[in-house]
């Protein structure tokens, strides 16, 4: 038996013993399901969620490739593949959702000092600290680098004042990684630093944002004379923009999958435009009865199929993702908006249900989902920004 086979056997055994029944496929549907984000104030409706997180966190398997010295699993790529396969076999739930894992950890690994890595990575991996992201500001919009939240060097600490917006789950997070202006006299991209801030520090407050679709995970976060130790600076002073750009690219790719993922998840669930149209507009010989809707839906489904093939092609080609990330962000979110418009239109007045017993839950969810899609083409870089990026960086069109 080679090492990898051995690892597979050990993993299988470990999962068998350690993955609680309700964390596997075929779990009792009456047991409540947690969305596990970890953190100081995490609450669990199902105690096994916590057990599963702790056991996986202890082994470092929430970030299996990170070296053991930082609390990770220290596994090779091949071993990670085996781990994923064995988790898939038993339908094991992912133990932890985390901006710390998705966004901050890669930054720490690349730019953090030894001390910073040892301090923060284990807590991310174990889900002890929940992170949120502080980039946008009320005045900045697409021009992220125009941010005004300032961090003044007062000797031992930075004194932070300003306001962030669109900080997802800031009201539930323990720490925030933020872009702040440390060089007010430098050209705007050259005066930004990447700073970690404990949200329990005096002077940090948050306020949730209600969207047109209703409540949202987004918050406004305010900094009022917040003192931050200088050791919390990641990377060089005034070199935060480089880090930010990397993270943004990552985020863009992440959002671009929304459109298709939604369409795939929707198919067969009744939450797809064809099923809705057949149900609400009628069906004749297997066809959507109203030909005016049918023709628009057909064009839309064709675009969806073509977009799906494009995502697949990009995957099969490998590696070129960054050149086309803007296209995927643009197309994915615009397509998703259109998809929801069609579902709403095909649903008639029921597609505009807001609340109350007279409406079906699916319809009410659809209304809110439709409204929520309007933000997708704004957050993570607007569609206009993506078009600018494509025309300049991909097509090489000149600047005026």
């Amino acid at each position, binding site marked *: 038996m080679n090492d990898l086979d051995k690892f597979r056997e050990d993993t299988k055994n470990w999962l068998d013993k350690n993955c609680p029944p309700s964390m596997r496929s075929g779990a009792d549907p009456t047991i409540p399901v947690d969305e596990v984000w970890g953190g100081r104030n995490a609450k669990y409706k199902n105690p096994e969620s916590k057990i599963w997180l702790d056991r996986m966190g202890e082994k470092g398997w929430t970030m299996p490739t990170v070296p053991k010295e930082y609390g990770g699993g220290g596994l090779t790529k091949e071993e990670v593949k085996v781990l994923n396969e064995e988790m898939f076999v038993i339908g094991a739930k992912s133990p932890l959702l985390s901006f710390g894992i998705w966004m901050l950890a890669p930054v720490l690994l690349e730019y953090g000092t030894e001390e910073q890595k040892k301090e923060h990575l284990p807590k991310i991996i174990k889900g002890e600290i929940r992170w949120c992201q502080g980039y946008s500001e009320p005045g900045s919009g697409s021009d992220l680098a125009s941010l005004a939240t300032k961090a003044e060097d007062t000797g031992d600490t930075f004194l932070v004042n300003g306001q962030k917006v669109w900080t997802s789950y800031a009201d539930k997070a323990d720490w925030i990684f933020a872009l702040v202006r440390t060089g007010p006299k430098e050209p705007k991209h050259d005066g930004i630093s990447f700073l970690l801030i404990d949200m329990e520090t005096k002077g940090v407050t948050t306020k949730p944002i209600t969207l047109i679709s209703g409540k949202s995970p987004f918050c406004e976060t305010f900094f009022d004379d917040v003192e931050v130790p200088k050791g919390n600076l990641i990377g060089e002073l005034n070199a935060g923009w480089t880090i930010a750009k990397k993270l943004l690219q990552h985020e863009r790719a992440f959002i671009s999958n929304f459109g298709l993922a939604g369409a795939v998840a929707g198919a067969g669930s009744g939450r797809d435009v064809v099923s809705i149209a057949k149900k*609400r507009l009628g069906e004749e010989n297997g066809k959507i009865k109203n030909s005016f809707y049918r023709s628009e839906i057909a064009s839309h489904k064709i675009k969806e199929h073509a977009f799906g093939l494009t995502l697949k092609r990009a995957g099969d080609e490998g590696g070129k993702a960054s050149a086309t990330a803007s296209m995927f962000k643009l197309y994915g979110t615009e397509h998703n908006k259109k998809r929801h418009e069609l579902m709403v*239109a095909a649903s008639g*007045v029921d597609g505009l249900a807001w609340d109350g017993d007279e409406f079906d839950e699916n319809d009410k969810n659809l209304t809110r989902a439709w409204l929520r899609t309007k933000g997708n083409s704004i957050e993570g870089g607007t569609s206009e920004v993506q078009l600018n990026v494509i025309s300049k960086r991909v097509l090489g069109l000149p600047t005026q």
Partner: protein
Amino acid sequence: MKLVLTEEEQFLKDTAKSFADERSPITHFRSLRDHNDPLLWDQDLWNEMTKLGWPGILIPEEYGGSDFGITGISVILNECAKTLTPSPLFATGVIGAYSITNFGTEEQKQKYLPKIVNGELTTSLAIDESSHHNPANTEIIAKKEGSNFIVNGKKTFVIDGASADLIILLARTSGNKGDMAGLTLFLVNSDSKGIDKIKLDMADSRNYANINFSEVEIPDSNILGDLETGGETVEDILDIGRIAMASEMLGNAEAAFEMTLDYLKQRKQFGVLIGSFQALQHRAAEMFCEIELTKSSVMGAMKAADEGSNELQRLSSLAKTVAGETLHLVSNEAVQMHGGIGVTDEYDIGFFLKRARVAEQIFGSSKYHTERYANLSGF
């Protein structure tokens, strides 16, 4: 047919504009919504509208109205729509007033019209029974028993249905689902025995209801128009309603566009006003053109209604289609061009998006009317 407002109509429009700006800015609508107002419109404001004579615009002078015509009432709705002014004016001042004036018996006119004029009585039209507008799909049967009709069933998405005093009910007295023949309209007191109104909570926070009819008795004398010709009658009423609604939707689009232009002229990004970006400029210019076409379509339809043109049906479908598509475009572009704040509840522009989609469905979507237009045009 001249496609310009008369002096009288322009005066009504100017009055409505001042009224909406001063008495009912968007904060008024927001406040009703935030307080989950049971009517979702304000009685005091309605009293003021009544004093201005608006519920009686379509009603002949002999019943206390001013008989200023479809164009008159439509330009008022157009201006009110710019600030999202909530009121029963559409369902009562257009639909109720027009229906009873044009199809009521003398007795019915005397009974209801003066009350509409003085704001005492509000009305609603109960047609649809499923999620998509289609009068021919009426299934509710009004069954003759002696000198009464007995009605059982459920009407959906009745505008102002949660508050209206009088329901104009479309029911089937013969024929089958899908037929326009065999339909009859009835005037039904909304507190009649067996009527259950269930207020709907819709995305645009307006007053709608589902209405259940359970063994509701309606006397013969409450038939509106003639027995079995309700299909034709209701199409005529609906066409007037579609034109008025198109005028409202034009107002929504104009206001959303105006707010967006203002934003483009104030908001800076990358050190310049975003309104100086050519791509946004061209999209704004395209919206301008669509709005101009909508103005003309609505104007043509209003004038055709007032002049009794035989093009009325086609122009009504034209106006509803064009207004629907323009408002769809503008409401989407408005939110996108506002960026992040555009999708927050705190900012008003999102109201227009929600209102837009509901208005698009009222009395038939753009697709419904595009098809109707093609049918009426012979292709």
